[in-house]
């Protein structure tokens, strides 16, 4: 990984950027706006894999029903951060954490909290599409509901169509519902995975580089989908693709070496970042 320049050089012809030493704490401007409901209220959140500290004192408020993008170079802790939002680290031995992480006011790591219940409200879509290979398209969508005890056929039928419509996949698969999920194309599989997450009716959807294995057309479809999801869901998306963050997010958080460097409106991050490290990263000088 490249090291950061002490002071960011100003590209020729670019608007002058304040060159200053990085502030000790992340600049989070006035985000979120007072009136917005906060989905994740995270304070001094640190995490370790064994001896190695992966996240350092992250403090951030992620607004509900907004798309928040998390960007940063490989190894900066962005995936680690995302996975701590629905307790996916629980099964990784040797992880340890400090600080508080509240989701709509509820402490996710409080004593006695059931991680399974957390994940029912905070769903996740992964980098590589992973429909269950033994199941049909319909079974893939409904597996979360079924295994959580839903037996009512009319509810299942309704939720199947609703989830697939929401994932913009219904028209393509409505006649193939009994075909294996793995028979679909890569982009369709990823939308199937999104439908599968939506079927358990979460209020928050975490996406870990959901388009990095897809071609540009499939990527565009997923990005359109994210735009519609924002009306009902809080979306947090980790992406390596800065254009994607710029295109489809309301807020952007820049992570570097386990720290939150800057968090602001996406437009501000990409046009006039306050921090020289952010400026260096979004202008492509490292990372």
């Amino acid at each position: 990984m490249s090291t950061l320049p002490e002071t960011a050089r100003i590209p020729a012809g670019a608007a002058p950027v304040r060159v200053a030493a990085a502030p000790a704490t992340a600049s989070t401007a006035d985000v979120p706006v007072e009136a917005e409901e906060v989905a994740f209220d995270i304070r001094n959140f640190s995490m370790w894999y064994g001896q190695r500290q992966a996240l350092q004192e992250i403090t951030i408020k992620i607004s509900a029903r907004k798309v928040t993008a998390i960007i940063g170079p490989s190894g900066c802790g962005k995936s680690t951060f995302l996975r701590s939002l629905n307790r996916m680290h629980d099964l990784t031995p040797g992880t340890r954490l400090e600080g508080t992480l509240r989701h709509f006011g509820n402490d996710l790591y409080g004593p006695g909290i059931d991680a399974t219940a957390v994940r029912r409200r905070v769903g996740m879509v992964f980098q590589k599409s992973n429909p269950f290979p033994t199941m049909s398209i319909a079974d893939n969508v409904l597996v979360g509901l079924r295994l959580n005890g839903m037996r009512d056929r009319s509810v299942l039928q309704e939720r199947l169509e609703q989830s697939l419509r929401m994932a913009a996949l219904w028209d393509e698969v409505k006649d193939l519902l009994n075909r294996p999920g793995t028979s679909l194309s890569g982009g369709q599989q990823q939308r199937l995975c999104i439908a599968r997450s939506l079927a358990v009716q979460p209020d928050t959807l975490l996406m870990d580089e959901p388009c990095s294995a897809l071609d540009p057309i499939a990527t565009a479809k997923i990005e359109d989908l994210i735009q519609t999801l924002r009306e009902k869901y809080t979306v947090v998306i980790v992406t390596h693709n800065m254009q994607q963050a710029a295109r489809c997010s309301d807020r952007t958080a820049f992570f570097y070496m386990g720290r939150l460097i800057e968090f602001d409106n996406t437009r501000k991050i990409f046009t006039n970042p306050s921090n020289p490290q952010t400026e260096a990263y979004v202008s492509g000088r490292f990372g």
Partner: protein
Amino acid sequence: MDASPYLPSPRFARWRRWKSGAITGILVACALAVIAPLFLVIYFLLVRGYSSLDWSFFTQLPKPTGEVGGGMANAIVGTLTLLAMATVVGVPFGVFGGIYLAEYGSDRANDWIRFAADVLNGVPSIVWGMVVYLILVVPFKTFSAYAGGVALGLMMVPLVMRTTEEVLVLVPQSYREAALALGIARWKVIMVIVVRTALKGIGTGVIVALARIAGETAPLLFTALGNNFWNHNLKEPISALPLQIFAYSISPYDDWHRQAWAGALVLMALILALNITVRVLSRDRQSTL
């Protein structure tokens, strides 16, 4: 014109060809030495056994000592019964043990369990017979089909456990994570998503284990004992092909020797069929797992 610099001298080329031929010859000989015994076994079983196979072999009980004819119908059914009972004993312990190894056990615990399983795999089969004799035959004061099934089942446990573990580990982590992220409880994730994905591999492991124990004789000597009649009660001794082959082949009668060969052929065919099933199953496992 000079010879190409890439062309070896004729003498060196000859030496190299000779060396290559010699090594290839040794390797082919080794490969033949591996396959040849299988063909010898099949050849002798076919020559000696096939002529003795007749309809009555499959339908009749053994005739009393000294009489010619009869068959091993009860031994064939007995072997199938014992295999079914062994499956009932061996598969749950083996599969759940394998699930524990692959999904729950700590590295330390797993090391010990794997070590124990490997040692158990090496326990001589007659020792299994003696152990089950002490546990199930002595207290109940009778040899029984149950005891034979348990002895074979215990032999299956370490085999099934290790293959189950191996195929579960092959299930990509991403399926587990995807299922957990849907808010599905961990045990359901394992039982419904992971085990179901690996089901064919687990089934293959069970059949391999069955093929391995189908011909075991020693564990049955002290447990199932053998029986010249139909077994109507699993609490009583039962016949099995290996036991019948053993009893007939050490007898002094030509007709019994003939039937022992026939029994060996049938037993071998059963084991071969199990192994072929495994081949067929694991051929299309490549695509789904």
